């Protein structure tokens, strides 16, 4: 397993109860499709982020099954409906090599 994968979660838009904001999540993952070869011609095994889940206060709000056609760095944007109590937006990902990670941001109303 290589160095840790960097991820970034940005919440954009005006945060107010009942309104929508946009969460933008990106990860500097190599997203090796399994079709590429390295400099010596050996096939690089498939290793992509296959699952991304987003939670608002531990409630699942978005789940994505990604395929080999995703870009690197991975970029996902999705709306988040802001609840009255605010809370924490958390994004969890997992890749083919078994590596997982988590990024979170607090919603400040």
């Amino acid at each position: 397993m290589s160095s840790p994968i960097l991820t970034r979660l940005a919440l954009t838009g005006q945060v107010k109860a009942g309104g929508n904001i946009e969460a933008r999540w990106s990860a500097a993952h190599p997203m090796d499709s399994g079709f590429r070869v390295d400099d010596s011609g050996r096939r690089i095994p498939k290793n992509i982020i296959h699952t991304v889940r987003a939670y608002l206060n531990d409630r699942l709000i978005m789940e994505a099954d990604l395929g080999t056609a995703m870009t690197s760095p991975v970029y996902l944007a999705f709306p988040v409906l802001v609840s009255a109590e605010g809370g924490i937006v958390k994004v969890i990902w997992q890749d083919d090599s078994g590596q997982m990670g988590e990024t979170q941001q607090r919603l400040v109303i």
Partner: protein
Amino acid sequence: MLRSAFLSLLFCGSLASTAQTVSSEAFKLPKGPLNQLSGQAFLSPSLKAMQSDASTNPISLWLEQGRSLWTGTAGQVSCAQCHGAVETMRGAATQFPKWSVKQQKLINLEDQILTCSERTPRPLKSLENAELLSLSALLHLSSAGLPFQISPQEEIQQRWQLELNAGAKIFTTRMGRMNLACTHCHDLNIGKTMRADVISPGHPTGFPIFKLSWQSMGSIDRRLRACYSGVQAEVPAPGSPELRQLELFLKSRAQGIPIEGPSLRR
């Protein structure tokens, strides 16, 4: 099934909202002379919007990594231990490439970071290493707004001039199966389109770049090699002296144009 329908709705939503923020106007060449413009002026409006918004700009990831490498975590060797806060390095990136008396060759900023890392327990291995590029991106960002300041110390003046002349010669020498020199595009045909892109004067003010077609960051070394490949010439090895000579010439040619920091390119 239901979930995928839901997801596609979500993505449509996000696409639509991006489309609102991204201007749909077509690319227009700026008025006035083109030969002093940086590469930024040749970006499409949507790429410009992506560049200026940290939440959509992929370079943010590299910059964050660079900052954490610079300061380091407790007990870890870091750049800050010798160099102090990254803000004190303002202007450092403007001075490369420079002649290294110790190594008897021209070195650029990436070479310098590589040499620095060899003194640590965790040396970086290649010029296109993600960690190296993230540090280079951070240093270039901290010099944003400053023009290149490349001039030799007196004792190496003669040697330096030879390197600069060699760079100028490469810039004006036809090469490859296309039989083109750099000058044919980047001096004589600025503003015209080549394939689907607009030719810029080739001022190296935006490096390291995130090139969308690479899906990654890359140094000026890699970008110049891509140019060699573009005219179907023999591509020099990474870190070759001729790439450094060309970089030296390009930066002296761009005197007075401010560095923009790490930039997006197509």
